[in-house]
């Protein structure tokens, strides 16, 4: 483990910073490739869900973590992708074309949301996306000829060019390929001028603008890419769950997605996947310890909400950088070992800077 002291621009934008990265990510890839033979059917399904939510998380991370625009209605894009996939594969489209078409549709919807959202900032944007999420959820439940309404819609297996992903393992590999491609695309985007423009907008809109960044264009682009990734995740989700109903894409799901990126760690690609692991793993962990708790607590219906809320509150209070931030701190501790001092990462500000004048 090492921190690099970068001395030139090329070093800053390199995909793998040093040999250690190549080694560890290579090992991770090998493990992921071998996973169907190492894991039970159930765990493999969970891993597939982690990859799917990871892709959605990448999209939201790009928007929230890197461009600084928060969307409290991301489940809408997720749903658009899922229903587009369900409808298009229903017409017999091969999987890759349906996926891309769904992503394009999501991106188009993202632009439609992003354009009016340019006029508003901060919490207004949150409320605008929240409203949009509500409207789309209502459309999903009312537009029965396409979405099947509240009765739901079934989705078939992944089919492309005469090949059908009929086993859990084969669908897992489809998800793995999509997730790896999406991650690489995001990493490459972030080291391109576009990605750097996103980060500049997050850090200070005014400075970004004065550096010649077209705010409207890049914000819309960010919405579009984010929505496209959410749509791709939704398409995979449709195949994994095989049955879509509007309540899978409501406000609760949107908040879950936000919770995922916040807990994973805003502003890091790792965070999207760590958050997905957390989001999928927490219900399992709760149901695992449920039986050891006293009857009154363990069997109570609200337990999951309490744990979710408490974890979220705890993370915002004590670890605003999320799981990935915690990992960085542990790493810094190990690296600086004898010289680590307490309060190295303590937050300093105790006043709210006025956001109204931003």
């Amino acid at each position, binding site marked *: 483990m090492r921190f690099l002291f970068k001395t030139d621009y090329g070093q800053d934008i390199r995909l793998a910073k040093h040999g250690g990265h190549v080694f560890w990510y290579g090992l991770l890839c090998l493990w992921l490739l071998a996973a169907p033979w190492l894991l039970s059917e159930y765990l493999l399904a969970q891993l597939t869900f982690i990859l799917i939510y990871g892709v959605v998380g990448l999209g939201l991370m790009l928007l929230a973590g890197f461009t600084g625009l928060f969307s409290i209605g991301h489940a809408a894009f997720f749903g658009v992708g899922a229903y587009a996939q369900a409808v298009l594969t229903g017409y017999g489209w091969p999987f890759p074309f349906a996926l891309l078409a769904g992503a394009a549709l999501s991106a188009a919807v993202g632009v439609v949301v992003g354009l009016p959202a340019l006029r508003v900032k901060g*919490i207004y944007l949150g409320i605008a996306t929240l409203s949009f999420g509500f409207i789309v959820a209502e459309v999903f439940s009312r537009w029965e000829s396409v979405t099947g309404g509240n009765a739901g819609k079934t989705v078939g297996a992944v089919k492309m060019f005469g090949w059908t992903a009929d086993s859990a393992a084969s669908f897992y590999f489809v998800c793995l390929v999509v997730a790896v491609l999406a991650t690489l695309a995001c990493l490459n985007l972030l080291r391109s001028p576009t990605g750097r423009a996103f980060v500049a907008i997050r850090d200070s809109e005014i400075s970004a603008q004065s550096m010649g960044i077209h705010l409207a264009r890049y914000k819309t682009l960010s919405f579009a890419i984010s929505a496209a990734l959410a749509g791709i995740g939704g398409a995979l989700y449709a195949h994994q769950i095989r049955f879509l109903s509007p309540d899978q894409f409501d406000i609760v799901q949107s908040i879950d997605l936000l*919770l995922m990126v916040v807990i994973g760690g805003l502003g890091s690609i790792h965070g999207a996947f760590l958050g997905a692991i957390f989001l999928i793993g927490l219900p399992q962990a709760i149901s695992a310890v449920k039986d050891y708790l006293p009857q009154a607590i363990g069997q109570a219906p609200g337990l999951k909400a309490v744990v979710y809320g408490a974890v979220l509150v705890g993370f915002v209070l004590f670890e605003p950088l999320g799981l990935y931030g915690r990992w960085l701190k542990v790493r810094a501790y190990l690296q600086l070992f004898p010289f680590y001092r307490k309060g190295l990462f303590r937050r300093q500000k105790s006043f709210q800077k006025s956001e109204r004048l931003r």
Partner: protein
Amino acid sequence: MQFLQLVITGVAQGCIYGLIALGFVLVYKATETVSFAQGELMMLGAFFGLAAMTLLGLPFWLSVLAAVAGMALFGIVLEALVIRPILGQPAFSIVMLTIGIGYVARGLVTMLPGIGTETHTLPVPYKDQVWNAGGLVLAVEQMVVIAATAVLCVLLFAVFRYSKVGIAMQAASQNQLAAYYMGIPVKRLNGLAWGLASGVAAVAGLLLAPITFVHANMGFIGLKAFPAAVVGGFGSLPGAIVGGLVIGLVESLAGFYLPEGFKDVAPYVVVLVMLWVMPNGLFGEKLRKKV
């Protein structure tokens, strides 16, 4: 006649939205943060009132007072324990924090054995009474909502206009740091703002309870108060009430004149149109930045 009836229903419902939105605006004005837990505070207030009436057997007025005072105290404690440590962080952290608080509140109430999963009726003295006025059927519950909202508005207006605390709050809301330099105890005022918002939420909960029911998920109505706050202009107290009325009216009329399904999305359509046409809302403050 039908139309007038719908308007009255809409106004009564709008008052509830307005009261919850008032809570958002109070917190927003004082601390520049948005509390997503306002609906849950309302739910807690309703449960508080229910407990005071049924468990302690207090008379109606005393339990209302107890609920409001208890929730105000709860708000102050909540601010001191949870909100204050992250002051100075981006506004979004507080949004996530209050979402988390909302989850915890809802979950904890649901976990109460035998109480949390049931729906309860609040035994108010004016339950199910109806006035007939020239062909109009006026439910007393709705009249009480409208009257109580009006009284509360006048009270809040007086506090912010004439009392020292209220003026200090306005000062702190414009620039926390500058207010602090002028000797205004900003932290204490933040706590007070949360207390006030929680108290208002408790009133909203107690007023809503006779119309619907007391239930752990009744806080979701708080999500409809966001459109109210935005339509009125997020930082404006009268705007919150007016926005609430607009949303209530739109919802009530859309429920009758438009096809099924539009009732639930009408407030959100209104808010999107509003953000598009007038991002500052009807009563929004217009601030200019000098570079």
